[in-house]
């Protein structure tokens, strides 16, 4: 073989080999991965029904440093003598890495025996081409399927993760802060279409581990309810801002919850208080928390199976006033709470000292 003849032949052969790779091997890999996903990954998923734990009541926590720093959570456990089993964090929609499913974070939570409660906020502004804009009726775009790719990829990662967790998309759908709210021109019909589309995509991808938490802002928000087939849990946000509230009145946990509870109990779904907190102004915060647990233990709200403390000094009232909703900021709160009641009557898992 002469070099002059061999070289073009060789170039041709090499090109052929790479061509075969690009059009023969690589597509097959995608096919194989898809098969692996459909046959193996989907079937490894643990069903969300595991989130309902009999008569046990689950306590959860939101803190600004969670889910990355746990020392405050552990010291609160020690003070309350019960275990937190839910850790709540917030995640916006979008194209960046921070908007993707946080597999590592969620795995770490599971390792620590915590169930993630992910509040999944459909901000359109997080997507390329929409930076800084929150268009009117943004849910219409989401409902039309324009961002299905993002939803599907997120759902698949959730399936690969495989463990049950709470997912709370588009919460407080009449809170004017949010671009998915009624104030941005999103009608109940559009909201329901959007919600059902998201749930269907998760269902298609086999995300049986994802418990969808539908979370109203006011008792009137039941018009946004997408139907029992599309909801697993109902979430409630229960805040007492005391004299800082619009009405300027101190309301106890029972009163606020009763209104919401009665509005949503028709569904028969288990209820999760996804956010709860109390301000200092206008009353006794310690007693508020004491009465909250007492009211739950007394069986006033049998459908409420879990409660997440919104423990942050950096909260804001609906009218924009900074407020300290810290639960753990003052050690006297622990003394006010009847701790034996939590474990004995409410059946929250007791903590062992130094349980981490």
């Amino acid at each position: 073989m002469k070099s002059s003849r061999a070289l073009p032949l060789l170039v041709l052969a090499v090109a052929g080999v790479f061509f075969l790779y690009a059009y023969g091997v690589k597509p097959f890999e995608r096919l194989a991965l898809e098969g692996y996903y459909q046959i193996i990954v989907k079937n490894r998923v643990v069903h969300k029904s595991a989130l309902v734990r009999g008569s046990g009541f689950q306590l959860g926590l939101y803190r600004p440093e969670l889910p990355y720093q746990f020392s405050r959570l552990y010291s609160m456990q020690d003070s309350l003598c019960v275990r937190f089993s839910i850790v709540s964090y917030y995640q916006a929609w979008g194209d960046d890495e921070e908007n993707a499913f946080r597999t590592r974070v969620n795995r770490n939570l599971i390792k620590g025996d915590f169930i993630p409660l992910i509040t999944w906020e459909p901000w359109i502004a997080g997507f390329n081409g929409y930076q800084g804009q929150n268009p009117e009726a943004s849910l219409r775009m989401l409902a039309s399927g324009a961002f299905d790719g993002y939803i599907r990829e997120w759902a698949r990662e959730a399936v690969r993760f495989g463990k049950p967790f709470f997912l709370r998309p588009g919460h407080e759908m009449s809170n004017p802060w949010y671009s998915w709210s009624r104030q941005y021109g999103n009608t109940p019909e559009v909201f329901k279409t959007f919600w059902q589309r998201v749930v269907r995509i998760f269902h298609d991808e086999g995300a049986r581990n994802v418990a969808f938490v539908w979370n109203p802002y006011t008792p009137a928000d039941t018009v946004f309810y997408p139907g029992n087939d599309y909801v697993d849990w109902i979430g409630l946000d229960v805040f007492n801002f005391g004299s800082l509230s619009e009405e300027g009145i101190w309301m106890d946990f029972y009163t606020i919850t009763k209104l919401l509870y009665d509005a949503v109990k028709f569904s028969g779904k288990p209820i999760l208080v996804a956010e709860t907190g109390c301000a200092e102004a206008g009353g006794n915060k310690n007693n508020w928390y004491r009465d909250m647990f007492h009211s739950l233990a007394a069986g006033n709200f049998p459908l409420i199976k879990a409660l997440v403390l919104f423990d942050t000094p950096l909260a804001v009232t609906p009218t924009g006033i900074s407020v300290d909703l810290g639960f753990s900021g003052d050690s006297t709160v622990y003394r006010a709470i009847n701790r034996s009641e939590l474990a004995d009557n409410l059946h929250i898992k007791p903590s062992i000292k130094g349980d981490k």
Partner: protein
Amino acid sequence: MNGKQAGVDTGRLTLTVRLRDRVILAVLVLAAIESVIYFGDYWFLGGHRKHLALFIVLSYAVFRNPVRSVFSWLFFQFIRVSSGHVLERKVTVDVLTTAMPGEPYDMFDATLRAIQRLAYPHTTYLLDGGNDERLKALCNELGAAHVNCRGIPGAKAGKINHCLKNYSRGEFLLILDPDHVPEADFLDRALPSFQDEKTGFVQVVQAYYNERKNVVAHGAAEQTYGFYGPLMMSLDGLDMAIAIGANCLFRRKALDSIGGHAVHLAEDACTSLRLHGEGWKSRYVPYRASYGLVPEDLQTFFKQQLKWASGMFDLFRHEYPKWFRRLNFQAKLYYFFAGTHYLNGLAGFISIAAPILLLFFQAYAIEMPLSGFLLHVTPYILLSFAINMFVQRWYTDRRERGFPWRSMLLEKGTWHIYALSFVYTLAGKKVPYLPTPKTGAGRTSLALLLPHMLAVGLSLAAIAFPFFSYHRIDTGTRLMMFFALMNAAALTPVIVWGLRNPDEGRKENA
């Protein structure tokens, strides 16, 4: 390349290359090449790179073998088993073998008697570097010519050239290593391949009678099975079989055209390079015409490998560029392939040192999940294994077939020797020519095992280190821990072999 060929008897079995074999081999090779690209795609384009320089170094160690495999698979496409030629006229043949002072007398007694039993008419020359009286007497008794080569420089090749110039007049020369006992029909089998006037030399199989003595001998022999089997047959298909020094028949005219046998550390490879450069063809006859000795202990094996590696490096540095323009395309490719073989010491060093250093210094060359690595490397490993198993049908003895784990471990465990010879070459330092002592010299000196012990110890320490001092063990770390574990596991058996007396664990002889 034609599909149908008559079978060739190797002395142990009959070899054929059928069309079906070629098709299966071609499909396997194509799939295997795709698997290398698949692995490369994941490694290089999967977005796993963390540190460019470290990544390049690590990539060299990881991809050296896959890329070289591709070359050897491509050579396999030209496989041919030679036979069926008839040499029409009578020719004159001289058989040359060399003696060095200190080599056992009994060996020469056996070898010379066997040479005299060769059926084809020939003249025998013993090139005696010691001018030994007993050997002289032996030659007299057997009717062989004794040539006094005392003080002739240039080791074996020097003696051969001395004999060529002053004594031997045969048209063809058979050069035999003194430890090789030839079969009586050696010449009758090999000479017909000279029918083509352009054929410069003919090589036959080099087989060993002590290969089952212990695991080191077995491993050292195993390293040659593929070479004397499918690879040489493939080179034969390209008319460029390689001379191995022992059991090689030369056309005198060819040797004269390059000024005699090359005097070089890798004299055999150098001679073939020059002959191919001069335009001579060469042939390989897969006949087990003689049985010799293979190193039985690590010390001897290391010495032999040091000599070969240094010889090939020197050849690649000095002879290859000189002859490059005169070699045809496939010879250019093959000698490049052969000349860079012993860079495996560098790759071995990197693959052992990199995980240790990266783990201890918490440096990251690559961030890749171990599962992803295994998933993407597995097709390559399975297919190269399949090809290796498939081409074993062209091994010259059924007993040579099987998974070559001994030779793989042995090659891994010779990294320091190959690296040493690479350093010698870089420093321009000459490695002295040592005749390879072929009988068991005893236990291997600890100095030669120390690098392995150090490597195993450090690898294990490096695996343990992250558990105590890392904040978090991530995917890149796990991959390196896996590499370190593999290294420790691969080097440990070689240490054990080195510490063991080579005469223990004796197996039944061939």
